[in-house]
């Protein structure tokens, strides 16, 4: 029986690029490297205008806290450091590097000196951090922090190749073309975690990749290829953990708390490159698709390449674009201009014409059909959350676990009445989190003000 979860939806898969081999896109004339491409604090630039940088050189790093450095993806001259709107819609500083096309490698990029046998988890964490590797499935959680959180606590090391979002085929192609990178990466991770077996979670729509993996792993037993039902959001880490282990991860908790570590296939491949070749994350696979793109392709793209160059490389546009999306169509971010750079979390660039316009209603009225409740993988009641949110009842929203929403969008996808369900929930979640931060800040302030004589204990009470 195929592994799966309860709820979810079956949008048209549109995996048009499943047979398109990954093409190496030539590096662009200029790259734009945003200083924050991960969850956590933004990096501080380490270079200034006019500096000459090498490929793979660290050009920005975090000052403590969660985060990881960013690297120059080409060799060249720093043209400017400017504040721009990024692909995810926030204003962020970015370093512009003019490519000199010399492809000079940074001196820091060198293979590890230690032997495989003497490699420890701490080594891998350090390497992963310096290589700037984040979760490449799209969440961009710093990978070293994930590895560190799992130290000594995990029994399931899971590689996520579910790729449940429509259109995207980069993981599929990675497994088909370069399975060694993933398998060897897995071997390294298994070794340093002291585990004997890892799991590869893959949806059953990637038959050729499954076959390839089975071929590659016959006679070995360090990997278990777990075939999952093709359903959205099968690639959500909570749903994969549930499908594989039957354990349910409560909202606000991390996979290591149920003994699991989940990494995207491309992340594992990047860790392999970093450990074995010392190569930081300066390139990633991107699917370019959508009905406006002349030749949909899978590309291997330098981080920082503007998305319009990706589209141009794929033959340009055939129709007027209506919407450009960075990421998958279910959770990706719509762009307002075409010049946003490709970042570490960009798994796809999709250009749709207005034939793919999603219905919207000026006055949606919920007909209480219950589809959102039936599809919600987190078992919430999205329709009531929307009703409470629209009435401004944020406390009621919290009572109905609005913070447990993973924003997969199944509810909005299937709503016959065109209620913007997940969109409303997202907005309400933002308000609630803001409120909670304000309350916490006020509490800290009053705790300090009320007990000035015990000021030294103020920190404890917060």
């Amino acid at each position, binding site marked *: 029986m195929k592994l799966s979860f309860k709820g979810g939806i079956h949008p048209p898969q549109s995996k048009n690029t499943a047979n398109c081999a990954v093409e190496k896109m030539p590096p662009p004339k200029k790259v734009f490297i945003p200083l924050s491409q991960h969850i956590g604090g933004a990096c501080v630039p380490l270079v200034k205008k006019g500096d000459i940088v090498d490929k793979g050189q660290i050009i920005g790093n975090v000052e403590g806290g969660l985060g990881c450095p960013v690297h120059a993806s080409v060799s060249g001259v720093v043209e400017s450091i400017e504040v721009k709107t990024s692909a995810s819609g926030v204003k962020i500083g970015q370093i512009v590097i003019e490519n000199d096309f010399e492809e000079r490698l940074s001196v820091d990029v060198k293979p590890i000196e230690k032997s495989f046998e003497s490699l420890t988890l701490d080594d891998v964490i350090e390497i992963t951090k310096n290589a700037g590797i984040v979760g490449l499935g799209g969440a961009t959680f710093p990978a070293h922090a994930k590895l560190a959180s799992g130290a000594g606590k995990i029994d399931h090391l899971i590689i996520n190749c579910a790729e449940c979002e429509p259109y995207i085929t980069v993981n599929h192609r990675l497994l088909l073309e370069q399975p060694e990178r993933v398998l060897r990466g897995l071997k390294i991770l298994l070794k340093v975690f002291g585990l004997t077996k890892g799991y590869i979670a893959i949806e059953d729509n990637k038959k050729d990749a499954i076959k390839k993996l089975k071929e590659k792993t016959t006679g070995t037993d360090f990997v278990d290829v777990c075939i999952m039902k093709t359903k959205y959001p099968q690639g959500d880490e909570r749903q994969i953990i549930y499908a594989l282990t039957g354990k349910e991860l*409560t909202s*606000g908790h991390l996979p290591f708390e149920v003994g699991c570590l989940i990494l995207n296939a491309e992340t594992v491949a990047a860790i392999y490159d970093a450990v074995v070749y010392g190569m930081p994350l300066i390139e990633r696979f991107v699917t370019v698709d959508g009905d406006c793109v002349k030749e949909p392709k899978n590309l291997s793209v330098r981080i920082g390449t503007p998305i319009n160059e990706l589209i141009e490389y794929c033959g340009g546009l055939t129709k*007027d674009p209506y919407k450009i999306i960075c990421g998958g169509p279910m959770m990706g971010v719509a762009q307002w201009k075409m010049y946003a750079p490709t970042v570490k979390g960009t798994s796809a660039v*999709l250009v749709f014409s207005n034939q793919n316009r999603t219905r919207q209603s000026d*006055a949606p009225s919920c007909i209480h059909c219950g589809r959102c*409740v039936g599809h919600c993988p987190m078992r919430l009641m999205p329709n009531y959350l929307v009703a409470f949110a629209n009435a401004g009842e944020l406390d009621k929203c919290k009572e109905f676990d609005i913070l*447990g929403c993973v924003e997969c969008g199944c509810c909005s996808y299937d709503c016959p*009445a065109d209620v913007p369900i997940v969109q409303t929930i997202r907005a309400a979640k933002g308000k609630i989190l803001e409120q909670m931060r304000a309350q916490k800040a006020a509490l800290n302030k009053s705790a300090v003000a009320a007990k000035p004589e015990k000021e030294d204990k103020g920190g404890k009470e917060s």
Partner: protein
Amino acid sequence: MNIDYTKNPLTVTSAPHLKNPERTSTIMLDVIVALLPATVWGVYVFGWRALAIVLASALSAVLSEALFCYFMNQPITVKDGSAAVTGLILALCLPVSVPLWIPVIGSVFAIIVVKQLFGGLGKNVVNPAIAARVFLFLAWPAQMSYYTVPGASLPVLANVDRVDAFASATPLGALKNGKLFEIGLYDTVLGKVGGCIGEVSAMLLALGGLYLLIRKTIKWHIPVAYIATVALIALIFPQAEPTWRYVAYHVFGGGLMLGAIFMATDYVTSPITKWGRIIYGIGCGVITMVIRCLGQYPEGVSFAIMIMNLLVWYFDMYTRPSKFGGVEKKK
């Protein structure tokens, strides 16, 4: 590559960027399609007058919604098809002999009082068609409980004289008097008996229900729970022999099929959770049988559904699915 953004601005919306093509009007169309066999059968059995009633009811429902929205300066919502469904269902639970103004009044009441005054589609507390039927039944009991024999030649538009010549007993009316219906079970299931226009053919209603199940428009929980409860209660407390025939007349004889499949499953006025739906169906079944067996009326489907409609909020709240991951871990 240059794009003139002032001419063709890109659209920026919050994810998801995909949408299921199915919409409210698709669902309403599905319901109408599912009701068509029973409607056509009603016209076949009761003559063109049945069609006149269906049209009068559906048209006045659509028209009253359009006019209400127009005069209230609201967007006109008849395109979603829900008014047409209300009008059709109301017509199907009327006897064919009613004067033509009865469906008109019923539809206007259903749409304006029960639906629009509560805020329109999705906001009504009870099912409009059922509330209208109950209202008509209480206001004009004589007209509403005069059933004619199948095939009686009735005028298409003029009022019908309520004479004994055409009067027909109904399966439930017979059960009320403590005896089984004289017409066989075969004809009852097929629909060759006296009764309301769309209620007589249990078989074609079940066929429509099957269509809705296949189209995933409705889930099985409410109809199955409802019908099973009615059958079970009839089985435990039979009031006529043989028991299996008594049970069968209860299930196929009255408005149960139409009620359980098409009225109790109305999205707006039924629970949203699996267990809520099952409890709701059981509740409908119990109230129906209490009215049928202990009450004064031979039929209780509409009362039962209307009462249960009022409790839907509680079913939703008390059968909330436990969220993924269960209870919060203690800190």
